[in-house]
């Protein structure tokens, strides 16, 4: 069996599972945030359930609308806080205590290799970076998990993406995953899992692997996953004392398809409006003028992302007419960026640094776009209306490309600014 099949077999108490099989799996960890939580809680009450199946296995994180930006969002926060108290949920990260859920989950030790994690957010697949099977579910499914601790799942077919080769200078894991999305296409992995493998992935940091797995949902995959190794274990051991068993692929693991890629000649990539799979090398879209540059999100708001963008912005200015918004993914990332002097670089460059939140990415809070405006963003979606007006345009790129573009005021190949 491959790693995904092995995790699902363990979680459903079976010796073996095969793709297409329906299993009822026990959930190890379930996560909700401030925007999907209220509906899940309402559904939980409608089911008639009184107590959650295991309060120790539930994590609640406020990140989408923090601090509350309207009376209505403040009310939603209240509903979730009351539930947290009522159900004695200890793993609760209120405003100022955590940050973006997909960063906080591993940071605070809630992601363990080999476990089955569900989150009421589509980018829950991010935790596959640590060798867990993690997938997004809706509010009613979450209510059912809260009530019973179990969920029916179809064992997915798995596509293995083998990546070899070194990255050219200023080419990053974000460029790699954008090119993979461009190759597989938005509907190319419906109901399927994706395993990222090969020496390029092995040599990647935890941050880079999270960026890769995060965007598995953009080809409609059920999850993205990387087999755990030394890099994974070094991270996990610093974050939790919880015992765990590493799950790896069997030597005879099978896949629906194997995709082989080489990064040697890969350029910085840009995903163009209005579809994530509309991916082009940056050279083809250079010269597009921008109004806003956003650095942040669960895809690229981590310390490495801030460091790489800051290395470009040091001693430079964001171009007049462009607003740059920097949002560290978590309180921990924020503090580290502060200690490393990165925030000072952003502020001196003329960027605004916001508090940890999903922020502009989902167009719900902060940094929305007006009709006709163009944004280059390190986030994960560029759908019509995603970041504000349906008449705005969003280009997705790496933190380096975002920083380079903020400096010049148009979409820019970071290699062209090399000093």
């Amino acid at each position, binding site marked *: 069996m491959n790693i995904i099949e092995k995790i699902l077999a363990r979680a459903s108490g079976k010796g073996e599972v095969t793709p297409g099989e329906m299993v009822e799996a026990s959930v190890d960890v379930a996560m909700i945030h401030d925007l999907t939580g209220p509906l899940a809680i309402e559904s939980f009450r*409608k089911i008639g359930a009184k107590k959650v199946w295991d309060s120790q296995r539930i994590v609640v994180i406020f990140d989408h*609308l923090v601090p509350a930006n309207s009376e209505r969002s403040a009310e939603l926060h209240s509903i979730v806080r009351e539930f947290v108290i009522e159900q004695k949920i200890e793993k609760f990260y209120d405003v100022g205590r955590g940050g973006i859920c997909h960063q906080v989950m591993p940071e605070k030790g809630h992601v363990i290799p080999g476990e089955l994690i569900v989150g009421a957010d589509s980018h829950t697949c991010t935790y596959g970076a640590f060798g867990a099977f993690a997938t997004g579910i809706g509010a009613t499914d979450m*209510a059912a998990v809260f009530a019973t601790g179990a969920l029916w799942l179809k064992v997915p077919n798995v596509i293995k993406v083998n990546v070899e080769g070194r990255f050219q200078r200023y080419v990053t894991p974000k460029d790699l995953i954008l090119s993979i999305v461009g190759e597989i296409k938005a509907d190319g992995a419906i*109901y399927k899992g994706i395993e990222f493998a090969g020496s390029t992935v092995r040599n990647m940091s935890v941050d880079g692997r999270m960026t890769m797995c995060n965007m598995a949902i953009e080809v409609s995959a059920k999850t993205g996953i990387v087999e755990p190794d030394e890099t994974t274990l070094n991270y996990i051991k610093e974050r939790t004392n919880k015992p765990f068993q590493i799950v790896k692929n069997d030597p005879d693991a099978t896949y629906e398809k194997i995709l082989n890629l080489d990064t040697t000649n890969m350029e910085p990539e840009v995903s163009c409006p209005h579809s994530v799979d509309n991916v082009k090398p940056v050279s083809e879209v250079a010269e597009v003028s921008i109004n806003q540059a956003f650095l942040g999100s669960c895809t690229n708001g981590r310390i490495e992302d801030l460091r790489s963008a800051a290395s470009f912005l040091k001693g430079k200015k964001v171009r007049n007419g462009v607003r740059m918004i920097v949002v560290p993914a978590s309180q921990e990332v924020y503090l580290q960026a502060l200690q490393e002097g990165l925030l000072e670089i952003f502020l001196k460059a003329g960027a605004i640094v916001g508090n940890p939140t999903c922020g502009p990415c989902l167009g719900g809070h902060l940094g929305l776009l007006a009709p006709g405006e163009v944004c280059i963003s390190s986030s994960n979606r560029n759908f019509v209306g995603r970041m504000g007006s349906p008449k705005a345009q969003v280009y997705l790129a790496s933190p380096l490309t975002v920083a380079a573009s903020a400096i010049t005021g148009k979409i820019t190949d970071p290699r062209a600014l090399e000093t």
Partner: protein
Amino acid sequence: MISGKAIKYGNNVNTDVIIPGKYLILTLDPMELAKHAMEGLDPLFFRKAQGGAIIVAGRNFGCGSSREEAPLALKHAGVKCVLAESFARIFYRNAINLGLPVLECPRVSSEVRDGDELVVDVKAGEVKNKSKNLTLRATQLPEFIMEILNDGGLIEHLRRRIESK
């Protein structure tokens, strides 16, 4: 049997156009959500769907976010059923859980025009296009999914299970 007029869209209709992020604070008010359904793609949608309609789409309907407000908004706008060539999995589960029938129906994009009169037999997996006088096959739903739909969604389904214990 479900009958209604087809409202037709293309491939990769995503949850951000089905219900934009800025309206998610209306999460506990489905009727308010419904007024903004499909706003980014089709500003006339809410009016068209009133009184019952069937959405017909291409591949990967409902891709993107896990927001259950997407099928919730469609259902409360008057959508009785969604027929697509394929669905994004979270949307698919969410719709079933809310008691909104969703059927994979190969060729539905090419065989149904906007405004065609359709009759859908969910259990049999059959779609009749009365306007063109032809019948299409849809993938039949497994028994346990039919049970959830027949109960009106997962909440009612689980409530009954808990009560019968």
